């Protein structure tokens, strides 16, 4: 049996909507197989993984808190990936943004000013953007591979954070624990509604998604992003600069990842620690593709991936399987998403029997 692809004359609009859902379905099927092979009842396992976290109000707030950084980062990454700039270092930009935003509440502890929070957020965005500017500069100026440099900077950011919270920023009253001071009240991102824990990070995520959706859909900049992404040469003929686009894409996504970082630290954690992210920067890559690089799709995809984090924790407690399942599900989902996207551009034909002459690849 062979699989043959035939190019569609036009993109299939049916499959461009359906493919994420097919991918989700296939991931669920893989989940059933996995749970059965682990000797668990698949129905109750899937229930506790994907449904139970949605049944209580507090866990819906947890969902929003986890989805906020994923959506913020992924919306920025969609600009990068659409313009063919492969920033995979959002995790590092998240960390540096969190650190830059924490300068005021940690170093200038006790500064009482209503400007505190806005400045923290701006510092976070600047920090993330500057860190993303390194691979952008190297790519635009020297043609250095941005995939590798942006990834290496993740490891460096993690080590820098580790050194900072164990060294110069360690809480002087913290009994030598590797963590900074707790942020003062005026440095904590407020909740959106009084009754739940969801903080303004989720609001930022929705705003960023809507703004970028508008930019991509309705403004010339969005067209420029797509054209340069599909063909840098064609873009140059249209008078667009691919070098400027490298900076634009990296700075936007770096700033959003930085904002996600400081929002997480200020809204959810309340201090800096050696580890502040369960891999949000990498999971956001999956979110971006599951949302088909469309900011509104990314909001939905961010909620789904946030659910896998909660589901992993819930399943660990209720049916006693390791929460490593989360990352397995996330990886599988990305695989299925990428595979199903083939349906948008190609018809797939299964050919049975021996290959006839001339058509074998």
């Amino acid at each position, binding site marked *: 049996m062979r*699989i*043959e*692809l*035939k*190019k569609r004359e036009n993109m299939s609009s049916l499959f461009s909507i359906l493919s994420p859902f097919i991918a989700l379905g296939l991931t669920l099927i893989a989940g059933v197989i996995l749970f059965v092979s682990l000797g668990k009842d698949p129905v109750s396992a899937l229930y506790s993984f994907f449904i139970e976290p949605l049944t209580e109000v507090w866990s819906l707030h947890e969902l929003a808190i986890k989805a906020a950084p994923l959506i913020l980062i992924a919306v920025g990454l969609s600009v990068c*990936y659409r313009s063919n700039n*492969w920033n*995979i270092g959002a995790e590092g930009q998240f960390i540096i943004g969190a650190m830059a935003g924490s300068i005021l509440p940690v170093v200038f502890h006790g500064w009482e000013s209503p400007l505190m929070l806005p400045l923290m957020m701006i510092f976070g965005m600047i920090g993330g953007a500057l860190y993303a500017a390194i691979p952008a500069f*190297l790519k635009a100026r*020297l*043609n*250095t*591979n941005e*995939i*590798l*440099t942006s*990834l*290496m*900077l993740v*490891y*460096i950011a993690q*080590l*820098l954070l*580790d*050194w900072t919270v164990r*060294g110069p920023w360690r809480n002087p009253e913290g009994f030598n624990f590797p963590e900074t001071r707790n942020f003062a009240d005026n440095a904590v991102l407020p909740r959106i509604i009084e009754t739940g824990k969801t903080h303004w990070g989720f609001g930022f995520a929705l705003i960023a998604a809507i703004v970028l959706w508008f930019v991509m859909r309705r403004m010339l900049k969005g067209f420029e992003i797509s054209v340069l992404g599909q063909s840098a040469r064609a873009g140059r003929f249209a008078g667009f600069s691919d070098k400027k686009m490298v900076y634009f894409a990296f700075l936007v996504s770096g700033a959003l990842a930085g904002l996600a970082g400081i929002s997480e630290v200020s809204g959810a954690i309340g201090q800096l620690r050696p580890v502040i992210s369960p891999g949000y920067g*990498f999971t956001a*890559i*999956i979110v971006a*593709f599951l949302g088909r690089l469309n900011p509104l799709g990314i909001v939905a995809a961010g909620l789904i991936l946030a659910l896998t984090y909660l589901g992993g924790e819930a399943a660990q407690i209720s049916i006693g399987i*390791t929460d*490593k*399942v*989360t*990352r*397995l*599900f*996330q*990886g*599988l989902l*990305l*695989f299925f998403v*990428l*595979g199903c*996207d*083939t349906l948008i551009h*190609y018809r*797939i034909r299964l050919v049975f029997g021996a290959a006839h002459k001339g*058509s*074998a*690849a």
Partner: protein
Amino acid sequence: MDMTQAIILTIMTAATPLLLAAIGELVVERSGVLNLGVEGMMVMGAVCAFAIAQLTGSAGLGAIGGMLAGLLFSLLFGFLTLTLVANQVATGLALTILGLGLSGMIGEAFIGLPGLKLVAVPLPLLSDIPFLGRILFNQDPIFYTSILAVIGVNWFLFKSRAGLRLRAIGDSHTSAHALGVKVVRTRYLAVMFGGACAGLAGAHLSIVYTPQWVENMTAGRGWIALALVVFASWRPTRVLAGAYLFGAVSIGQLHAQALGLGIPSQLLSALPYLATIAVLVVISLNRRMTLINTPASLGKSFVPER
């Protein structure tokens, strides 16, 4: 054994996984395919080698198992990018994410267990050569494999007909296809070779370098191997030099940490990553050489016309 020998030996041990993974990826990229999943295949090789060595009691079987695990895992990438023509960059990332997740699950039962070590096999006569014998000819089988792989790949790419075809595909899959070269089949074989090499490189980590299983124990080595291929401008002998250079950097920083020179340990740990960025920058300064050596169809999908 004197101090110099000991240091050279540790550098070689640190360099071997990088060398193996990079030489595999070099062949893949020469065929025009960019597989960014090296880290994922490597970590799968590491966990499977450790698990199989534990279950069978044989480190040798572990090494073979690790290699096969990398190979099988690479087939997932091959199916998506070669059969379903999915985006190679994104699929490679997916392979890494999936590998890190899956290895974490498989390895959970093996955390903290003392591992089996693949023993060194001294080569008769050669290992008696003063100084060099100890370093070069009293090593574990994976080390010998890595050196043979460099020699073999160099011969294959530049001296054999099949190697010429593979390079032709990497430079222009359309022309190669028109000449009757089997593009997709060759690329599948290249991807599988890359997977086997990455798997064996991972096995080296978990049954030779540090015989134990730690989650994410590859610690970015797969990505460094990818950078080495660029650094080597797709030439096997330069990969050898680059891998040993990186081995020296990572061992050097470990020694510096042990000495406690007052430099933050985090800065020293960051050195291999900083060095990677530095070499990538240096190599891209010479744009002409990069352009000449980069396989022209690298990362592009190929759909045969029917």
